[in-house]
């Protein structure tokens, strides 16, 4: 972004007090109003794409998983689907159904985590505590199924590592009943609490046209009425057999983004129940060669934050030629940078949370620039408190 030297610039340092991953934003402000925004990622840049080129196809499963702790399964799935495409193998339906089940559980986890985090940004710590406590239920289920609360490593090249037994299915049903009840409560809070609505309605509004033009994806786009969802547009795994409905909203504001995510949680709960009740029989894996045939494949899946795209190139050997990961958050950054302009500084924490930024997917601190007094360093906590105080 070009800097206007008459504006203030305040940087906020990368050491982040709580909750967030480090990143760097720059906001140019004129009084209260944001006039320009830029982003400086890199605190979480580990060199994974390069690292993938020296690891075998199987080793990369574990590397890709750890791009992000919150969307780990969906990364591994996108990678696996791309490799299986290149290998030309057909994965047994039971394996794909289990992959989908894990993906939807992960989506519930991610949305509830975001609910707490976004609430915390606005000062609603009670909601943060409640949703994170309830989120433990999803993590318990994931742990019962896979053995780990985070990084479940469900995928193998060609299938899945574990099965869903009838006992597990009963546990999952019980957990889902609880989660559904809790999410009904959250929906009620989000749609009726006046303070909450005051801080989220008409904030960061993106019209349908703007969302289309900016190429927005995920719940952010859907909250602006853009019915874009890879699970429906380009079904993968068993999304044809167990489809989901695209949840959209028309308000296009931060409030709408809350509502879309909670509705998506209900859809996830519904589809998991369906998978459990109609699980396809059969094998869990199929054989995939160690050397993957040469070629290029594009793999697209719907992560909790939006479209995740993997481009995988093979040179016919045991190791990939190229693995390119385009995460949804990188795409969503552009929307934030454009939307921030004209808004108040106090709205920035909620706006940034609204796209559910996954910094590890992209790799925070904030630079705030005001005229020629040079950069002031603000911690994220300070910006957050600023926002809360402003609206008190």
């Amino acid at each position, binding site marked *: 972004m070009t800097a206007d030297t008459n504006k203030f610039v305040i940087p906020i340092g990368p050491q982040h*007090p709580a909750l967030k991953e480090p990143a760097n934003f720059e906001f140019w402000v004129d009084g209260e109003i944001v006039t320009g925004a830029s982003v400086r990622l890199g605190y979480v840049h580990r060199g994974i794409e390069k690292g993938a080129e020296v690891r075998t196809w199987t080793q990369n499963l574990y590397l890709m998983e750890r791009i*992000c*702790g919150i969307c780990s399964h969906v990364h591994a799935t996108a990678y696996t689907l791309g490799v299986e495409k290149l290998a030309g193998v057909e994965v047994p339906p039971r394996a794909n159904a289990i992959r989908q089940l894990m993906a939807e559980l992960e989506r519930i986890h991610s949305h509830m985590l975001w609910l707490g985090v976004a609430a915390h940004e606005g000062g609603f710590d009670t909601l943060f505590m409640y949703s994170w*406590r309830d989120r433990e239920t999803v993590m318990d289920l994931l742990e019962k199924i896979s053995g780990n609360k985070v990084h479940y490593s469900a995928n193998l090249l060609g299938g899945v590592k574990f099965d869903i037994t009838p006992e597990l299915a009963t546990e999952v049903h019980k957990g889902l009943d609880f989660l559904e009840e809790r999410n009904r409560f959250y929906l009620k809070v989000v749609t009726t609490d006046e303070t909450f609505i005051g801080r989220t309605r008409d904030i960061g509004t993106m019209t349908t046209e703007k969302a289309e033009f900016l190429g927005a994806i995920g719940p952010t786009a859907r909250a602006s009425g853009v019915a874009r969802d890879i699970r429906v547009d380009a079904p993968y795994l068993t999304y044809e057999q167990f489809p989901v409905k695209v949840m959209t909203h028309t308000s296009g504001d931060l409030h709408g983004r809350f509502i879309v995510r909670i509705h998506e949680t209900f859809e996830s709960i519904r589809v998991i129940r369906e998978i459990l009740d109609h699980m396809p029989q059969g094998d869990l894996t199929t054989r995939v060669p160690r050397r993957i045939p040469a070629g290029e494949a594009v793999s697209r899946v719907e992560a909790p934050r939006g479209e995740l795209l993997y481009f995988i190139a093979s040179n016919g050997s045991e190791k990939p030629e190229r693995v390119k990961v385009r995460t949804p958050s990188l795409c969503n950054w552009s929307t934030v940078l454009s939307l921030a302009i004209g808004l108040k500084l106090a709205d920035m924490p909620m706006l940034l949370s609204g796209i559910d930024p996954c*910094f590890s997917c992209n790799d925070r601190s904030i630079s705030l620039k005001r005229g020629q007094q040079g950069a002031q360093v603000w911690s994220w906590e300070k910006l957050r408190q600023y926002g809360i105080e402003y609206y008190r």
Partner: protein
Amino acid sequence: MVQQTLNSSWQGVLTKVTNWARINSPWAIHFNSGSCNGCDIQILATLTPRYDVERFGIKLQGSPRHADVLICTGPVTMQARDALLRTYEQMPEPKFVIAVGSCGLSGGVFHGCYNIVGGINELLPVDVFVPGCPPRPEGIIYGVAVLLQALKAGKRPEPIQWSGGGLDGVLHSGSGLEDHHG
């Protein structure tokens, strides 16, 4: 907390009180040096009602200048390295470091990648390593407890030895932990 040395028996009392205060209410600061968030989520989960680590007096707050303990995750990316050093330097003595997660131990699954330093102990003196990818909240709380136990005894945590076979309620780690300080 500045330690003044008094030439009297009051010094002993002062040290005991300071230690008691630190042990019963250590103030911690959390730093993510480039992790995938898995460990950070588990650390934050310790604050939530199921684990509720604040009832032990552990307080997670935002300023390095008020912190006794640095809880650090991540494989230390090049960009985060300076910020991590600065944070550590701003902390007053005595200060302690807990490295959480496989990345903090050795870079974890990213070991060898061009943009990371590797284990946190490449950069800072680490007192406690909590292994796992990610470790459970219970494991993290245990790690803090190990640190506090050592503080109570008035010293830094020492490498633990295998006693060979049998579970006797004490966590043992391989002797490889000693090699890590190299």
